[in-house]
Every structure is written in structure tokens, then in C-alpha cells.
């Protein structure tokens, strides 16, 4: 059984790191207190007997819909419409390494 209520600062830091969020001190204090309460409430699902019921990833039967793979020609200018960081027709991103 998972200890649903055990959320400490290091676990919160780990989740923030994965989620790419940096919290300030007051946010951390607030979220830490709230998370324990919310996750304890989420623990209600543990009480449900599900037997061999498969997970319902969608509420209705969903079939993959495939379209013809048609090439749409776009200029580099079109592609760059959604970014401010366009340089010589290329989208500039932050350094990875």
C-alpha cells in the first residue's frame, strides 16, 4: 500500500524538477500542506475493488483515424510565425549541453 499522505519537501522538489517548475518559499510551504490533503483524498480510489477491469484510457471506443500523408509546402517564414527567436530562417533554441 502506498502511503498517500507522505509528501515531504524533497519529494516536492523532485516533482517540480520533473515538471520544470521552480517554486518560491511561500509556494513550497503552501503546496506541501495542500498536497498531503489532496493526495489523501485521491487515495479514495484505492478502496475501489476493480478486479480485472482494464484501464479505460478513453470513455468511448476510439479508433485511430489516419489521413493520407500529404506534404504541405511551408516556407521557413511560415514555420517561424509562432516564435520570436527566428534567425536566418531557423528557430533558435536554448543550449542543451
Amino acid at each position: 500500500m502506498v502511503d498517500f499522505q507522505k509528501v515531504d519537501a524533497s519529494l516536492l522538489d523532485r516533482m517540480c524538477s520533473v515538471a520544470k517548475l521552480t517554486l518560491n518559499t511561500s509556494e513550497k510551504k503552501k503546496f506541501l500542506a495542500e498536497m498531503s490533503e489532496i493526495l489523501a483524498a485521491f487515495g479514495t480510489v484505492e478502496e475501489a475493488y476493480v478486479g480485472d477491469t482494464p484501464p479505460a484510457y478513453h470513455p468511448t471506443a476510439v479508433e485511430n483515424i489516419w489521413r493520407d500523408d500529404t506534404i504541405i509546402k511551408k516556407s521557413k517564414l511560415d514555420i517561424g510565425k509562432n516564435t520570436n527567436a527566428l534567425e536566418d530562417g531557423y528557430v533558435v533554441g536554448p543550449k542543451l549541453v
Partner: protein
Amino acid sequence: MPTYDATVVTKTKSAGGMILGKTAQDEFGFGTFSDTCAYAVPKNPIDPERTCGGSSGGAGCLAAAADFPHIAIAESTGGSITAPAAFTGTVGLTPTYGRVSRYGLIDYSNSMDKIGVISRKVYDSALMLSVISGHDPLDSTSSRAESGDFTAYVGKSVKGIRIGIPKEYFSDVDRKVSKPVEDALGRLEGMGAKTVDISLPRTKYAIAAYYIVAMGEASTNLARYCGMRYGAQEKIDGEFSEYFSSIRSKYFGEEAKRRIILGTYVRAAGFRDAYYTKALKVRGLLIKEFKEAFAKVDVLATPSMPILPPRFDEIESMSPLDKYNIDKMTTAPNLCGFPTISVPAGKVDGLPVGLQLIADHFHEGELISVASAFEGDSD
């Protein structure tokens, strides 16, 4: 300005409609009271000290307040059409999952998001659903179920219609809300409908299962908010992780951060089976339970919301969990993809109360028939 139109916008324009503008909503749909809007908080036209409901609160506000012919397009993931409709005294139609294309909609929880309608009258909602529904190859979850003219269901007799009353949806409800809903059911019986007592015991898991799935999906859907291709942008500074984190930390609101962190947690290694996968199994059980009920009745009836529209100062004193628990009427049908309609059931202390009707997948017609008959009797 968006660089392309959503399918619902394209269809509305093609049918001769005019898009007047965008309405306020809780940030990414994360709210029940429209108190977490990024730009402005819509106020209830009936009492500006009270909420319009959320997350599609601006749509509800417009539908209630505008004095010209209009229909509002709205979105629901866990009740975001029903809440504003109930709190503003309007009609809110949430279609079956997949009935309306979501192409152009920003994903919150992609296994639950639905585009629907808020309007003054049932006929208007039926008309708009006729326009915006139908299969769309641009949305991989769009259903091929037959659509058609939903206005044909308006004005149909309810004689012989079986209305299920699930007892779990009438407990822990403000008596000021449940009384008018019970009166409404009495009036429908007077029109020839038959009420049937129903029990949906697994409803007690619905709020938790809904929020686990919703937050889990939101956390991954909002990974796209990276400060480059989507969302706010700034001058790129530092390495990838620093820039990505700084943009997200600066521009996400508090509720968005809360849901992303909790969503990350419930899908993390070590917790995923206990929370996320278990919630998906609970969804399967809930669907089965509702389907068994729909073998006995045509629609289910509940209060739309368990409370009257609260004042903003009352909302401020609520914890996040208190707010999540207000969604007790709407999480199960939304988690399970069932269509719902909220129709005004009267007023108490000058404040509106909504009657929620729930039908089996792709049975919006029954909802429209019952809602329009009730509305006609109320006019």
C-alpha cells in the same frame, strides 16, 4: 491571434454565424468558479458579488447577459459547462466525448475535453450542436457516430420517458438546491414522464478518479508550454532546462502549477499504478455502472451543482480540495464521456438552480427532448 481556426469556428462561420470574440475562463480550464482566469474574472449578471461558475464562466456570463441573439461556445472537462449554466440560469449542453471536434482546442485532459454550448434556450443549444457536431479527420478522437439536426428533438413529448433519480446525487446537497430539482421532477411526472429510483454507489470514487486522470493528462499536455513554440516567450537565456523552467514558473498561475505538480506525482514511477492506472480502472467501472442504469432508464436527473452560486469572498475561504469537491455532480458523467444538459429549474433567494440531465453516449436527443419539455412548462 491564432494562426488557424478551430473546426467549431470554421463550422460556425460556414453556417452563417459570426464570431464576436473570446470569453474569459479559468486558466486552461482549471477551475469551478472562474476565479483563476488569467485576464479578467467574469461576474455573475444576477449578482456581481457572485461567481458565474467555471471554467467556462465567460461563456455563461455572456449567455445570461447579452441582449442580442447569441449562442456561446464553451468547453467542459469535468463540468465546466454545467457549472456556469447552473449559476447563471442558462442552458448548458455538454455533448458526448468525441461528438464535437476538438481541433483547435488547447488540451487540458485529452480523454475528457469536450466542446459544447451555453445558450438562453434549449433550442439554441440544439441548433448549435447540429452545426458544430460531426466527424472531423483533423481530430483523432472525433467520433463517426451519426450527427444530424438536433432541433428535431425540441418539443417532443416526454410521455413514457423514464427518468432515473440516483440517490447519491441528492445527499450532501444544499436543500435550497435539491428542493427545486425535486419539484422539477414532479412537474416532469405531471407531463407523463416516469421517475425511477436508481443507485450509483461507485459515484463516491468519481471526484478522486476524475482529478487524478485530469491532472495526470494536464501535466503532460502542458509540457508544450516551453517558451518557444507555445505560450509566453522571452529572450532565450541560459541552457534549455533553466529557460524552460523560468518561463513556466513565471507565467503559469497558481492552480496550473498545483495541477501540473500533482499530475506529475500521480503518473510518476512508484505512484502511477496506485493513482493513475487505478483511476482509469475506476472509470471503466463507473461507465459500466452508468450503462447498467441506462438499460433501465432513458435519462438520469440530478441537481446541476450542489450549492447556489457562491460569493467571491466565500470562494476565497475555500481550500483547493473544497473547490474540487464542489464538482460532485459533474465529475462522473464527464469522466465517463456521457452527454449532459443543465436547464434552469427555478430560483431560490433570487439565485438560479439548475437541473442536470445525463444520457447514454450519443443520446443527446433524449436530453434535448426532456429539457425542452421542462423549459416549455416553465416559460
